[in-house]
C-alpha cells in the first residue's frame, strides 16, 4: 500500500469556471484511460465545473486507474502542484499557472465556444514546445504520440518592460 502511495502519479484535469463536458467524457473514455495507465499514471482527478456529465468514480482496487472528480476548488494550484500531468481547458489562467509550476501540460480547446481566440494562445505556446494542444476527439491520439521529455520548460515573464516604458513616458527618472 505504501509503495503505491509513493508511486502515485496523478493526472489532473481542469475545465475552469464553466463547463466542458466534451473534455470530461474524453478523459474517462476507455482508450484514454488505458493509454494513461500504460504511461504509468495511477490517478485521474477531474475538476468538472458546472458540467452535467458525471464520470464514474473508481477506487482502483482491481489495479485500474483511480478516478475521482469534484466541481470547484479555491486551491487549484495545489492540485496542479501534486500532479504529474495536467490536462486543461484553453483559459490563459490555468495554462500559465501550470507552466509556471513546471508541469507537463496538454491543452484541450473547447470547439463549442463561439469566439474561440483562446486556441491562438495554446497554438503559439505549442509552437514554442511548452505544451501539447489538441481537441476532445483527438486527445487519445495526442496522448499516444506525446513525448513529455521533449517539452521545453517555460520561463515566466513579468511586467518590467511595460513598467519601464510607462515610467519613462510619465517623466520619471530610471532607477
Amino acid at each position: 500500500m505504501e509503495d503505491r502511495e509513493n508511486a502515485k502519479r496523478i493526472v489532473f484535469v481542469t475545465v475552469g469556471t464553466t463547463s466542458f463536458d466534451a473534455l470530461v467524457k474524453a478523459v474517462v473514455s476507455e482508450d484514454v484511460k488505458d493509454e494513461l495507465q500504460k504511461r504509468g499514471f495511477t490517478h485521474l482527478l477531474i475538476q468538472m465545473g458546472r458540467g452535467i456529465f458525471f464520470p464514474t468514480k473508481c477506487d482502483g482496487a482491481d489495479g485500474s486507474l483511480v478516478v475521482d472528480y469534484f466541481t470547484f476548488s479555491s486551491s487549484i494550484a495545489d492540485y496542479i502542484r501534486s500532479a504529474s500531468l495536467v490536462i486543461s481547458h484553453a483559459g490563459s489562467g490555468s495554462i500559465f499557472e501550470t507552466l509556471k509550476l513546471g508541469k507537463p501540460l496538454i491543452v484541450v480547446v473547447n470547439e463549442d465556444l463561439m469566439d474561440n481566440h483562446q486556441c491562438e494562445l495554446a497554438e503559439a505556446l505549442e509552437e514554442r514546445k511548452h505544451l501539447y494542444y489538441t481537441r476532445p476527439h483527438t486527445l487519445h491520439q495526442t496522448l499516444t504520440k506525446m513525448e513529455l521529455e521533449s517539452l521545453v520548460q517555460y520561463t515566466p515573464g513579468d511586467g518590467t518592460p511595460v513598467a519601464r516604458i510607462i515610467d519613462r513616458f510619465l517623466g520619471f527618472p530610471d532607477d
Partner: protein
Amino acid sequence: MEEGCSCLYSRMASRFSIGLLILLAIVLLMVRVLYVIYRCGKPLPKGASQSFTTLIVLGSGGHTAEMLSLLSVLRKDRFTPRFYIAAATDNMSLQKARSFEDSVAEKPAVKEASSQFMQIYRSREVGQSYVTSVWTTIVAIVHALWLMIRIRPQVILCNGPGTCIPLCVIAFVFKVLGIRWSSIFYVESVARVKKLSLSGLLLYKLRIADQFFVQWPQLQKKYPRAHYVGCLM
C-alpha cells in the same frame, strides 16, 4: 415693403451669424481634437509629477492576473491613489485586487489607505436581448461618467475587458474639454496572439491609448505603433 425687406435681411443675417458661430465652434472643436490626438502618445516632461491618480480597470480571470503581474512591478508611490474598477457582476477581480493591496500595505512605507475599489455596470451581459440593452447601455454610460467625474484619473491602466471602453472614451473627452489630462496605457492580453481584441482594436485605431503594448511579436508586426514587451505571465 421696405420694412419687410430689412426684416428679412436681419433674420437672414442673424441666421447666418448663428450658422457661422456653430461652424466656428465645430472647427475649434476639430482643431482641439486633432491637437489632443497629436499630443497623445507624446511623453510628459521629466519630473511632471511625483505621483499620479491612477485608475486600474480589471477584467475577469486571466485579465486580472496579468494586471496584477504588471502592478507588482510598478512603484506604488508613483501611482497613488489607486482606484480599481471591475464589472458589477465580477466579484472575484476586486477581491484579488484587495488581497494584492493588502500584501503591498504590509510594508510600513505605504501604509495609508491609498486604494479604493469600485464596481461598474456593464452595458450588456452575455445573452441579454438587444431591446433591453439600449436602456442598460444608457445606465452604464451615465454610471461610467459619474465614476470618472469622481476619480478624474491622470493615469489609466487597462488590459482588455469591454468595460474599459466607455471609461477611456470619457477620459479622451475630458482631455478635449480640458477637464483633465490623462495618460492611457493599454496592454493587450497574452491570449491575443494574431488578432487584437475589439477593445484593443478600438483604442489603437482611434488613437485613444497613449501607449499600446502587445505580448506577442506577431501582433507588433501588424500594429507598428505597439510596443512588444514579451509575456506578462
